[in-house]
């Protein structure tokens, strides 16, 4: 027996056709769309209405945390064992800020990266898409449009028909 697919994958041979297809799909009313491309395609985010600014904010937060976290450590250690170092003041702000800056950078870099992987749900070594024969070309020179079964408008037959109307190179069901 053939069970319900997780979604349908349509293959195009360049990014322009993919973009047009994606536009069409959205106009058709499909919402849970995704595209798989060998490189970030200009304008795809706009077409698929992807607006995710969390990455930037993560970086800001991480930066702040790093800066003030280190500053706190420095203030604490100098308060805990105050020592006269070359007649310099105990709270040598200019000297402290140097290291604070470094740790700020560290935080501002690590948090968005960790965040990105978390939001992407990566690492994810197993994924149904990998079972689809031609999907491996998504990392080479092929461009795929994907409509997920979770889409309210999704219907095995009609969606297939719609996609075929976009004249893709191939159409495949993504099977569990």
């Amino acid at each position, binding site marked *: 027996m053939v069970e319900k697919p997780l979604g349908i994958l349509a293959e195009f041979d360049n990014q322009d056709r993919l973009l047009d297809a994606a536009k069409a799909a959205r106009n058709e009313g499909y919402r849970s769309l995704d595209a798989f491309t060998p490189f970030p395609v200009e304008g795809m985010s706009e077409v698929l209405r992807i607006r995710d600014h969390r990455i930037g904010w993560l970086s800001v937060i991480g930066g702040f945390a790093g800066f003030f976290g280190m500053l706190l450590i420095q203030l604490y250690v100098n308060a805990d064992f105050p020592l006269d170092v070359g007649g310099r003041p105990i709270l040598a702000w200019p000297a402290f800020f140097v290291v604070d800056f470094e740790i700020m950078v560290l935080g501002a870099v690590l948090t968005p990266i960790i965040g990105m992987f978390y939001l992407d749900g990566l690492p994810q070594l197993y994924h149904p898409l990998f079972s689809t024969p031609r999907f491996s070309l998504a*990392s080479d020179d092929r461009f795929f449009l994907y409509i997920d079964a979770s889409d309210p408008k999704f219907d095995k037959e009609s969606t297939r028909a719609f996609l075929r109307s976009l004249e893709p190179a191939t159409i495949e069901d993504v099977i569990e």
Partner: protein
Amino acid sequence: MVERALPLDETLHEISVDVGRVPLRFPARVPWAIAMVLSLMLVGLFLVSITYLFARGVGVWGLNIPVNWAFAIHLYVWWLGLGHAGTLISAMLLLMGQDWRNSLNRFAEAMTLCAVVCAGIEPIIHLGRPWFFYWMFPYPATMGVWPQFRSPLEWDIWAVLTYLTVSLVFWYIGLVPDLATVRDRARRRGWRVFFGIFSLGWRGSALHWDRWRRCYRTVAVIAVPLVVSVHSEVSLLFASGQIPGWHSTIFPPYFVLGAAFSGFAMVAMIAIVMRHTFQLGDLVTERHLDVLAKVLLASGLMTAYGYVFEVWDGLYSGNVHEIATIHDRFFGIYAWSFWGAVFFNFVPLQALWLRSVRRNTVLLFLIATSVVVGMWMERYMILTTSLYKDFLPSSFGIYHASFWDWSTYIGMIGVFFTPFLLFVRYIPSISIFEDKEVLAREHEESGNG
């Protein structure tokens, strides 16, 4: 019209193949094997050297009072400088939207990583009691004593650690999509598992690409000031002392520029070698070398300005000790290092005004080599000429590099090349997807035009 970064006849698939084949069907086995054996021998030399060093003490080096810093510290500065180009190329040029970077950034960053690792090792092995290096970190010890955050050395530890981490992750997230590409090209299961794991199951989803872009650019934006800060702090390790020849405000920019300069030279050398060895001529084109050479020339001229300014600064100060140090740099027993730096960093460089030279791989390689040597001499000069005669004649002393100075340094070169060779062998050493991006854009343009 502007010259293209990549030839139009190249297709996306060819890029995958060109780059992917390097790890998958390794083309240059013999030269690689030879290089690997050599650099492993150097690693062996390094291990012997530090074993002896740890067994007996830093006295095995030619150090003394006053010249109690020499090779380890000047090489620390030098290695770190070499590293800088990687980050600059990938971050700064990314932000500037320079397409030509995309063929160079990957291995430039790898080179950065290896160089920073070497740079990180140097200050630790130069300690009198290296087994206590962890006292530099603020951990709650039963001693109740903490690190001293006013010390430039303390700054450097954090700077280098941050720089290492950032370079690593920046390099890796750029690598993930390409690892996925290779994973999908791979036939043997072993390869597919290997690349499958390290590509973290990347699928190239539009949503992921969107986040990836934001993330990558954010890191790039932060990486640029980081690079500048790192070598500025290294320079403060000297400028914070009152020793004539060190105590100068020119040092931070002077060091950063020098670093970039030597770094670009290193990148040029590696680019030429790899291009030749792996027939990547289509991706690392003459144009890339041309641009690289221009950047080299530019940063070289700025470094030269640094020399001029440093001398002028010393003379203008009117301080007898500063002037004495300048004099010693010109005519003292270490004059060879000063004039060596001036010559190797400036003279051959001028050939790069000629387009033909910029595009002649052999000449460019030689010039780059001369720059790397020149910067080596400059760092050496900055340390020794300032330390060996500072203020009081009764404390003047001379430094001779000992056998172990040299063996540790030469061995360190192996520590640099071994991981780099592993990189070129097993990891796509040119950014596949970014080149595809460029190619696609060029197709667009040509289509419209």
